[in-house]
Structures are given as structure tokens and as C-alpha cells.
């Protein structure tokens, strides 16, 4: 029964895509119809995702794929296909479920927007492209969908195109990710050149299976690093993370869908998908490419957590937190904890979507105010938002026992602690945990506690259509943890293909106390430090220099402007000067020679030939006047005459032959 499901797997992205196309054709006023269509498409996709998920539960390490020939090109055949395995199935369910919540939330959030239908068309399109990335069994198909995801995010970030900042952010996101994608594409070409196939799994001949890996051989390190470029671009890893915080210019549901739950996860997913390439020839679980992944992840995680401490925009804090969490996932993949990284990815999808939607609810309630320094005391005015946000915050900070984020974070710490190469990442990750708790506490205190400030005077709770998704996601964030605990590591076993056993004694591990201490330390420090926070940040008072450094995002944007952009400007100016002076003078010299000849021959003309021709012209002028009258200046008349002439020639020929 499983085989027919994999044959029809393409329907999962196809249904939202069809919904998107139909919505695009609807008139702008058909709001209800467009939202209903988008949500219907998402519900169908969710149902099918669950249907595809069920067979993967029956056997550990289940994998089914369906390949077919896309087209034949001379002697070469390009084959693509789709695959369903625990990794893809878990992602499918998470994306469709979170997507559904966000679609519903958008009805409330975008209620007053005049491009409501277009928004839902884009959302559906995005969802379709993302689902395509997940089910692809070919690096080529994955890349195509990957770029479609990029296009969708461009359209959605720049959705409020009338805002110059939104247009610039969309452009920045598109170009920055494209830099990574060039590397990705080169990696694909290289891989194809070595292994002759881009299929992941193909009865032992795919590029991730033994025969294919044998062909790839030693170049796997470079191919893996090139593919990682693409992953780093999409997942906002240092040094390509700069687009992600700017992408917050898009509507908040977009931030939740793209920049928290799904798209940025695509990079992590990609690394997990082509993991055999990364780990090829590993000694003790360490390869050069994986080491690069670890260090990039560590730098990203720590840097973003530090920057998040000094931001004032509620969504930007969450954006940097996302960057930081993605770094954490990359570290986990790099040290060999693939299952742990994907578990954190799934859990993060739920709770970060929750946080973003919660921030959207706050922004909506405070009449489009995004600066946390102008909020405060919202816990009484927006109780549902407050409660769900608190759950999200505790999940993100990793408060133990009841919240899913805590368990996955521990798995990652476990994996990092056992990395044979160095223990520095482990200690830096511990510092990251404290920082996460600290900046989330800061945000909570500013937004929900303390006295009312300017923007919270007239705040109101959001409508039901917005709070319901929040509640659903909050419940997910808690209930999900059942499958994650060490006492019953079901998801871990599911992803790595080993059966899980229930053992209550495993629940309490030494690591639990360590992380409890760290989280408590972070939150306690935050409460102590920000309790009486006023208009100026306490950190800014204590350490103004550090604060300014962090507030300006470590001046990375400025650094890029000084180096990369400056070089481009210089190259452009240099070519301009070359053009203007060097080539131009060359051309001028040539022209001078020509002119000289012209003058000489004109003199010869005037004196020698002119007089003889004069007589002939008077005759020609009379003829010319006659013909000129036939010339209306209408080219089509001329063309028609030419057609008639050609026909006349043909008839003449036929007559003679």
C-alpha cells in the first residue's frame, strides 16, 4: 500500500500550487474565496502528508522513492523523482501543520490589507515550493524548488512594496541568498560531473548511495562545502546572515512562515539530506567539511545571540534568535548529531512560529508599534497572547521538563560534548544557552511587564482567528516534548531508524541539572538586570561601548559596504574610466583618419565629378517626383507591394516552366 503513496507524492506540493494559481486569477475583491482556497489547499496537503507519514512508522529506516526520466538529451538522460523517508515525512507534517496555523492567523492579521488575495496566492506558492524541496529525490529538483522558495520569499518580504525599506530588504535577501546559491549550483555541477547522477537514492546507484559515493571520492569535501554555501545562504549562517533580520520588513505571518518555521530550515534540511557527502571518509565522525559546519554554526549562534541582546525591534530580536538557533542546529549536524539537529529543527518550527505569531499579535494590538521600549504592561491587556508567548519563550530558552525546546537542546549539547576534535564548541554552546535565556527575559519584561508606555495605552487583545493558531501552536510546543524525552526517545529513534524503548529512569540525566542551572541563571540575571528597565537599556548604561557595538549588528553591514560593495563600485568606475579615456581616444583617432579621407575625396568630388552629374539629375528629378507621389510613407503598404511582387514573380516562373 505504501508504493502508491510514493507515486502520488507529487500531489502534496501540487495542490497548494494549484490553489495559488487559481487565487492569482481571482479578482482582488474575492477575499473570502481566496483565503478559503489557500486554507483548503493546505488542509489537503496536511492530510496527504499524514498519509505519507503513516507508512514510515511501520518499519524503522523506511525509505521509498519513485524516479522517472524527465527528458533525454542526446545520450544523456536526466532523471528526477521523489522520496519519502522519516526525514522528509517529519518535515512534511511540520511544514503543513505550522503553515496551516499561519494561514489562519493571516486572515486576521491581513484583514485590512487591500492586496489580501495576492498575499494568500504567494503564501500558497511558498508552501508548494517548500514542500517540493522536502520531497525531492534529485538534487536538481531540489535546486529548482529551492530557487522557487527564494522567489516566493522575495515576493513576500517585498509584499508592502510601497515601503522603500521593504523593497530594499527583499532585494537584499534575494541577492545574498543568491551568492550562496552560486556555490550550491557549482556543487551540483561538480557532483554531476563526478557521479553522473543527481538522484539521491536509486537502488544503490544514487549519489548518496555506496556506488555513487565511490565515484565522488576525494572531491566530496569540496562538493559538500559548495553545497553548504547554499545552505548557509538560506539558513542565515555567518557571513551570509545579514539578510535575515532585514527580512522582517515583510508582514509578520511571513516572518513566521518563512523566516522562522520553514524556509530558513531548508538549509539545515539540505545538509541533513546530503549528509553522506559530508561524512564521506570520516575518521571518528570528523571530516574537514563537517568541521567547517561546526565552526560556522558556533560563530553564528554566539554572534546572533549577542546581537539579539541589544535590539529594540520585537521582530528583530526574534530574527536574531532564529539565526542563533539555526547556528545551533548546524553545530549539531556538524558534530554528528543529525537526529538531534532535525529534532531541534522541528521543535523550533513550532515554537518560533508561535513566538512570531505572538509578536504579530502584539504588533497588531499596539497599532503597528514594533519598538519594545514603547510597550510594557501588556500582560493584563492581552492575556492569551501573553500566556502563549510565555510558553514560546520558555520553550526557546530551554526550561526543562515540559517544553520541547529543552529536550532537543539537551540532545544537541550531548552530541557537542562528545565531539572528539575540540571541546570549545561545547562551552560556547553553554554560553549561548545563558544568552538565549537572557535576551528572551529582557524581551518579556519590556513587552509584558512593568508600567504601560506610549504604545500600550490603547492596546487590545487580538481577535479569535489570531489567538486560536497561537493556542494550537503553544499546545504543539508542549505536547511535542512527549516524543523527545530521553525516557522515551521516540523521535530520535524514528529519525535514526532504531526502535525506541520506554525507560523512566533515563528521564533525569546529569545534563538536565546543568541546563537547569544555566537557564535559571540566564533568566535570573535577566530579571535582576532588566527589572527596572526604563527608556534606556540597562546594558547601554553599564557598558555603552559594547551596547553600541551590538546594537549596530557588529557593524557587519557597514563592513560589507566598505569591502564588497566598495570593490564593485571601484570596478565599475575603473571600467568607466577605461571606456571614457582609453577606448574612446582610440576610436577618436581612427575616426580622425576617416575624416581626413573624407575631406580629400569630397574635394575630388566637388571639382571632378560634380559638373557631369548635374545634367543627369534634372532628368532623374522629374521621374523622382512621379514616384514620390506613390510613396505614402506607410511601411505596410510597401510590404504589401513586395508580397504582390513576389507572387507575380512566382506566377511568371510557373508560366515559363
Amino acid at each position, binding site marked *: 500500500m505504501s508504493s502508491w503513496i510514493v507515486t502520488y507524492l507529487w500531489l502534496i506540493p501540487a495542490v497548494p500550487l494549484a490553489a495559488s494559481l487559481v487565487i492569482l486569477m481571482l479578482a482582488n475583491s474575492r477575499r473570502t474565496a481566496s483565503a478559503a482556497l489557500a486554507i483548503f489547499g493546505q488542509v489537503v496537503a496536511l492530510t496527504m502528508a499524514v498519509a505519507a507519514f503513516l507508512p514510515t512508522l511501520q518499519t524503522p529506516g523506511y525509505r521509498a522513492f519513485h524516479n522517472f526520466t524527465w527528458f*533525454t538529451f*542526446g545520450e544523456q538522460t536526466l532523471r528526477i523523482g521523489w522520496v519519502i523517508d522519516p526525514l522528509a515525512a517529519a518535515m512534511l507534517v511540520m511544514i503543513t501543520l505550522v503553515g496551516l496555523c499561519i494561514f489562519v492567523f493571516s486572515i486576521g492579521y491581513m484583514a485590512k490589507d487591500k492586496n489580501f488575495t495576492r498575499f494568500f496566492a504567494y503564501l500558497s506558492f511558498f508552501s508548494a515550493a517548500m514542500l517540493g524541496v522536502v520531497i525531492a529525490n534529485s538534487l536538481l529538483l531540489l535546486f529548482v524548488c529551492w530557487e522557487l522558495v527564494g522567489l516566493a520569499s522575495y515576493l513576500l518580504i517585498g509584499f508592502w512594496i510601497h515601503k522603500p525599506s521593504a523593497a530594499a530588504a527583499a532585494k537584499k535577501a534575494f541577492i545574498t541568498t543568491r551568492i550562496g546559491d552560486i556555490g550550491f549550483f557549482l556543487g551540483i555541477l561538480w557532483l554531476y560531473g563526478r557521479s553522473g547522477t543527481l538522484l539521491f537514492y536509486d537502488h544503490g546507484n544514487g549519489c548518496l548511495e555506496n556506488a555513487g559515493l565511490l565515484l565522488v571520492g576525494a572531491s566530496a569535501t569540496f562538493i559538500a562545502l559548495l553545497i553548504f554555501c547554499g545552505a548557509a545562504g538560506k539558513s542565515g549562517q555567518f557571513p551570509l546572515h545579514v539578510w535575515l533580520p532585514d527580512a522582517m520588513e515583510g508582514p509578520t505571518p511571513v516572518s513566521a512562515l518563512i523566516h522562522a518555521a520553514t524556509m530558513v530550515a531548508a538549509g539545515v534540511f539540505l545538509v541533513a539530506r546530503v549528509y553522506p557527502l559530508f561524512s564521506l571518509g570520516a575518521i571518528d565522525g570528523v571530516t574537514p567539511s563537517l568541521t567547517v559546519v561546526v565552526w560556522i554554526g558556533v560563530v553564528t549562534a554566539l554572534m546572533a545571540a549577542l546581537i539579539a541582546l541589544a535590539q529594540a525591534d520585537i521582530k528583530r530580536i526574534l530574527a536574531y534568535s532564529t539565526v542563533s538557533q539555526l547556528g545551533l542546529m548546524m553545530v549539531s549536524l556538524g558534530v554528528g548529531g543529525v537526529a538531534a539537529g532535525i529534532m531541534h529543527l522541528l521543535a523550533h518550527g513550532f515554537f518560533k512560529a508561535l513566538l512570531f505569531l505572538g509578536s504579530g499579535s502584539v504588533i497588531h494590538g499596539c497599532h503597528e508599534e514594533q519598538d519594545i521600549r514603547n510597550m510594557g504592561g501588556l500582560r493584563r491587556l492581552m492575556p492569551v497572547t501573553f500566556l502563549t508567548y510565555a510558553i514560546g519563550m520558555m520553550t526557546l530558552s530551554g526550561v526543562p521538563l515540559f517544553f520541547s525546546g529543552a529536550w532537543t537542546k539537551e540532545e544537541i549539547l550531548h552530541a557537542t560534548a562528545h565531539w572528539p576534535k575540540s571541546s570549545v564548541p561545547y562551552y560556547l554552546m553553554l554560553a549561548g544557552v545563558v544568552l538565549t535565556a537572557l535576551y528572551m527575559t529582557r524581551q518579556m519584561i519590556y513587552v509584558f511587564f512593568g508600567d504601560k508606555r506610549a504604545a500600550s495605552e490603547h492596546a487590545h487583545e487580538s481577535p479569535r482567528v489570531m489567538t486560536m493558531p497561537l493556542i494550537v501552536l503553544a499546545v504543539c510546543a508542549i505536547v511535542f516534548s512527549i516524543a523527545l524525552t530521553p525516557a522515551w526517545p521516540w523521535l530520535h529513534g524514528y529519525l535514526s531508524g532504531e526502535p525506541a524503548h520506554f525507560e523512566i529512569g533515563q528521564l533525569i540525566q546529569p545534563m538536565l541539572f546543568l541546563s537547569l542551572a544555566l537557564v535559571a541563571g540566564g533568566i535570573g540575571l535577566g530579571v535582576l538586570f532588566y527589572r527596572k528597565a526604563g527608556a534606556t537599556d540597562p546594558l547601554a548604561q553599564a557598558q555603552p561601548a559594547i551596547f553600541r557595538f551590538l546594537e549596530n549588528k557588529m557593524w557587519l553591514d557597514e563592513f560589507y559596504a566598505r569591502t564588497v560593495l566598495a570593490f564593485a563600485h571601484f570596478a565599475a568606475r575603473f571600467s568607466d574610466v577605461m571606456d571614457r579615456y582609453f577606448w574612446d581616444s582610440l576610436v577618436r583617432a581612427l575616426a580622425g583618419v576617416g575624416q581626413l579621407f573624407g575631406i580629400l575625396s569630397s574635394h575630388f568630388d566637388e571639382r571632378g565629378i560634380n559638373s557631369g552629374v548635374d545634367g543627369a539629375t534634372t532628368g532623374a528629378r522629374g521621374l523622382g517626383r512621379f514616384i514620390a507621389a506613390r510613396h505614402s510613407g506607410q511601411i505596410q503598404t510597401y510590404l*504589401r507591394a513586395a*508580397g*504582390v511582387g513576389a*507572387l507575380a514573380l512566382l506566377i511568371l516562373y510557373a508560366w515559363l516552366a
Partner: protein
Amino acid sequence: MSAAAFIVIAIFTLAGAIAAATMPRLIHAALSLVLAFIGIAAFYFLLGAEFVGLVQIFVYVGAVAVLIVFTILLTRRGQEDTRGFSWGGVVVAIAVFCGLVWAILHTRVSDAAPQIDPLTVKRIGEVLMTNYVWPLQCVGLLLTAALIGALILVAEEKR
């Protein structure tokens, strides 16, 4: 080459071409033109020239059609209707068609398609780089000139 495929593609292509020539709205005509070009590419596939078919799709559908749509967008402002039509052209076109068909039917051609090996991209590349290397360079020059010329034509004059 199957007759059924041929008939389907022929109807598709001709319908697209007729729509491209007669649609009152420009943008509809441009989109129908894309259909006609795709149909023509399908003919190339049918004839065993996959490479030409792909080039046809890349160049005509990918570039020329997009250029046409851009031009339509750029020249739309303050434009009166685009419906103008004259029947004189139709008469001439039909007459030319009759003449051409007469000429084709009176020409003796070999109608049997010989068996051929698939024409590989490698072979095309070899021929292009040996026998046709000068024409290739000339086309490169022509394309460069066209690029520069188009830019100069379109560039806004400085005031």
C-alpha cells in the same frame, strides 16, 4: 514520428500563431506567440533535433517573448487601441500561401526519412567549433553589436 503527435502539435502551433496574429489585445497576442513557439520547439523534438528545440525554447520563449512583454509594458502609457487591422494584408497573405503551396506540391522531394543516429550535443559542438567557427564568431560579434545598439537606442538622453 507519429501522425497523431504531429496533428496535435500542428493544431496547437497554428492556433497559437493565428491567435498571436489576430488577437485584439497585445498582451494576449504575446502569450499566444509563446504557445506557437513552444509548438515549433515540439516540431524540432519530433524531427530529432532536440538541441534546436531547447535553444528555441530558451531564446524565443525565455528571451524574445519576455522582451516583447517588457516592450508592451513600456509603451503602454497614453496609447490608443491596438486593434487596427486592414484586410488588404489578409488577401496578400492568403495569396502568398496559395502560391507557396502550389510551389511545394510541384516540387519533387524525397519523402522517406532516413534512419539516423541521434544528433548529440557533442557532435553539434564539434561541427560548430570546426567547420562553422567563423560564422560562429560573426554571430558573436553580431550579438554584441545588437546588444550595444539596443542599449544606445533605448538609453534616455541626458538633459
